[in-house]
């Protein structure tokens, strides 16, 4: 269909055409996806095969020096003037083997059972008579799990270094054939140029692995155990029980099961994220439009007033508003006078009121950010677009809906998504403002004092950090589910954003 033809259609017809096109393209995309699969598969296969090919090559064509590298890391480098690199390879091998013998191996051996006897029951009969004595060194499942994860990571690095040391040795040998000889200074030169990334990323990566990767992996694995604060020392694998519990319809013998609580909290989390994102976005845009309108004076003052909310630490402003809303606070007093809160009740006793208040306070917190971002973009919209619209007699509202809004949505699409995700995980506003109140009254189930305004993230916090029984394992399972939810949303929207795909074009 040509453009002219399309333009000659009436509005409903255009809509129909677009609607059908969507499905047509959908089918095409589907087919293309499967058509592309074989070549994608081959690419992946090649990628997987390359290391094996390199290793095989090194064994067949390598000299005895290169072959020694299969057992002694860095041997070829050490014997061919690359002392620094060779020493580093060899050092890692020695340290790794020592670690495996002293710590890694013993812990790894216990991973299957997560430990068998704990310090709690580790009393042995006293050989001299009298009361039993404590046997030192009972198993701790936490430590076993943690060290096993660390050992696995070290093993992966070990295998990678084994491969690199062999590949390096082979290429050194090849270079020797053509008369290029290795020397140590080359290693340092590479560090500043060809391999500059290793120098730059070494420290950040160590931090990332130690303080983020290991904790996250630990969290994922813990969700398959029954770790909680009652059995701190010894816990066991329970496979998918925690997840099954979260999706179970009803717990036996109680009125409301954890599965129902989960669905309730999940529904509110998504509803909240949606409403919070859009209210903030549109109000922020409106404020930005008002401030940036021609002829409005004191632009800087208005902006500065709003930025005050960003500058003051969030825990201060949110705790303050919490005080204003609680007990005899100034706002709750006002609500009481207006009859919004019944006698003997608190502001956060009413579900609807609590939720509305949270959304409004969230606007108070979030609008300044959106305002700042929108201000910058609004000033970049070409003025002639408005000019020609004005000549054609467009109303201000028409100009907003046909020029400003599409332009803004186009540019700030990714921002909107990151805001949505940020709101799913908006811990501060709920925890500092309402603490999840009004409570569902399910504390006795042992999953924390979850309430009507709790998001998944605050529920996880309550479950794992607060209360008598801290149910880490279920909290970790919830954490994994939060990850899955966010990942799904990101995959749907993020993958389509052009700025991600066309990174190279952009530079």
């Amino acid at each position: 269909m040509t453009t002219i033809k399309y333009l000659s259609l009436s509005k409903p017809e255009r809509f129909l055409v677009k609607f059908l096109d969507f499905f047509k393209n959908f089918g095409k995309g589907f087919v293309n996806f499967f058509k592309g699969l074989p070549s994608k598969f081959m690419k992946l296969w090649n990628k997987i095969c390359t290391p094996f090919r390199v290793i095989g090559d090194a064994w067949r064509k390598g000299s005895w020096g290169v072959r020694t590298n299969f057992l002694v890391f860095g041997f070829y480098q050490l014997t061919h003037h690359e002392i620094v690199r060779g020493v580093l390879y060899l050092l890692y091998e020695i340290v790794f083997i020592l670690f495996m013998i002293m710590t890694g191996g013993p812990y790894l051996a216990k991973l299957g059972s997560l430990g068998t006897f704990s310090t709690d029951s580790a009393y042995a009969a006293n050989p001299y008579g009298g009361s039993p004595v404590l046997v030192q060194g009972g198993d701790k499942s936490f430590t076993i799990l943690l060290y096993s994860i660390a050992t696995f990571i070290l093993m992966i690095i070990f295998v990678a270094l084994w491969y690199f040391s062999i590949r390096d040795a082979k290429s050194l040998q090849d270079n020797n054939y053509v008369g290029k000889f290795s020397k140590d200074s080359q290693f340092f030169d590479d560090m500043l140029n060809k391999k500059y990334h290793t120098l730059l990323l070494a420290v950040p990566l160590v931090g990332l692995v130690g303080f983020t990767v290991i904790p996250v992996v630990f969290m994922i694995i813990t969700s398959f155990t029954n770790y909680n604060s009652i059995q701190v020392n010894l816990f066991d694998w329970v496979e998918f029980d925690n997840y099954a519990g979260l999706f179970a319809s009803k717990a036996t013998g109680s009125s409301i099961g954890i599965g129902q609580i989960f669905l309730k909290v999940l529904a509110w989390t998504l509803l909240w994220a949606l409403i919070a994102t859009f209210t903030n976005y549109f109000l922020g845009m409106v404020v930005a439009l008002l401030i940036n309108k021609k002829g409005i004076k004191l632009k800087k003052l208005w902006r500065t007033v709003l930025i005050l909310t960003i500058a003051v630490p969030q825990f201060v402003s949110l705790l303050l508003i919490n005080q204003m809303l609680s007990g005899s606070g100034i706002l709750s007093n006002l609500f009481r006078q207006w009859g919004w809160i019944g006698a003997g009740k608190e502001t956060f006793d009413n579900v609807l009121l609590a939720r509305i208040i949270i959304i409004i306070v969230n606007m108070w917190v979030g609008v300044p950010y959106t305002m700042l971002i929108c201000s910058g973009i609004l000033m970049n919209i070409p003025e002639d677009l408005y000019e020609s619209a004005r000549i054609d007699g467009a109303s201000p509202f028409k100009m907003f809906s046909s020029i400003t809004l599409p332009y803004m949505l186009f540019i700030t699409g990714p921002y909107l998504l990151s805001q949505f995700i940020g709101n799913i995980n908006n811990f501060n506003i709920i925890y500092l403002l309402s603490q999840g109140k009004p409570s569902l009254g399910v504390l006795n189930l042992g999953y924390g004092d979850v309430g009507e305004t709790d998001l998944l993230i605050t529920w996880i916090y309550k479950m794992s950090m607060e209360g008598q029984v801290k149910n880490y394992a279920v909290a970790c399972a919830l954490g994994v589910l939060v990850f899955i939810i966010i990942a799904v949303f990101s995959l749907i929207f993020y993958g389509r954003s052009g700025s991600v795909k066309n990174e190279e074009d952009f530079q």
Partner: protein
Amino acid sequence: MAEKHYASKRAAEKAQRVLIYTILTVISVIWIFPFFYLILQSFAKFPDPKSIFPTEWTMQNYANLFTDTATPFFRWWLNTFIIALFTSVLQTVLVLMTSYALSRLRFNGRQALMKLILILGMFPGFLGMLVVYYILELLKINTSIYSLIIVYVASSAMSYYVAKGFFDTVPKSLDEAVMIDGGTKNTVFWRIILPLSKPIIIYTILVSFTGPWGDFMFGKYIVQTANLQPEGYTVAVGLQGLIGQDSFYGTFCAGAVMVSIPITALFFWLQRYYVEGIAGGAVKG
């Protein structure tokens, strides 16, 4: 006729402007009111959250803050300041290093690393606190609140995003010119990228400096688990502990004012860079 038309149009414009000013004033009042209220409450002799203006004025709340042994505010402030200072310096260095590597260098696993960081950011971070605390225990630094520096700095790589977006906009031809003249990637980093990125450096420093002042979660966990004395708190942990105790309401308000003043001043001083940073970071998405 024409004159009348213009006059009515001018009147309409004026009415519109008055309306906008009214809206902006109302918004400003709403946005400022909590802080206004906070300052007034901090001077109230008898804390009464019901009324806006205190019945009797006093400086006692501020005096309590600095003299009461239960609230060693000066120590809290100093602790937080030291943590913020070290964090901002170290974190900025690491963030710039990571961003440069991910933006300008091409190496195997670059895309994978970026994806990994994206994925790691999707997990609720505090579930790892148990493990992080255990690692601090292994390093034998868990009994000091200053271990927060390590915790904050270690996660620097996670916040490479804004700076990378900025580096991406610096033309690559500059790099090539340096390389042709015999420079290395190291030269490019120090001589080209860093001098050009003053706004983003200041933005990173500002964000990493203000972060520790507001973060209470991990601080609270360390304080509770290691059973630290009040002298070892940060302001966020200390002030958060005051909430809910009626006798400390005035002290909380005074403390909140004392925390907010330096941060706000710093913020307004560097406002321009902050605005550039978040606006740029959001647009490049």
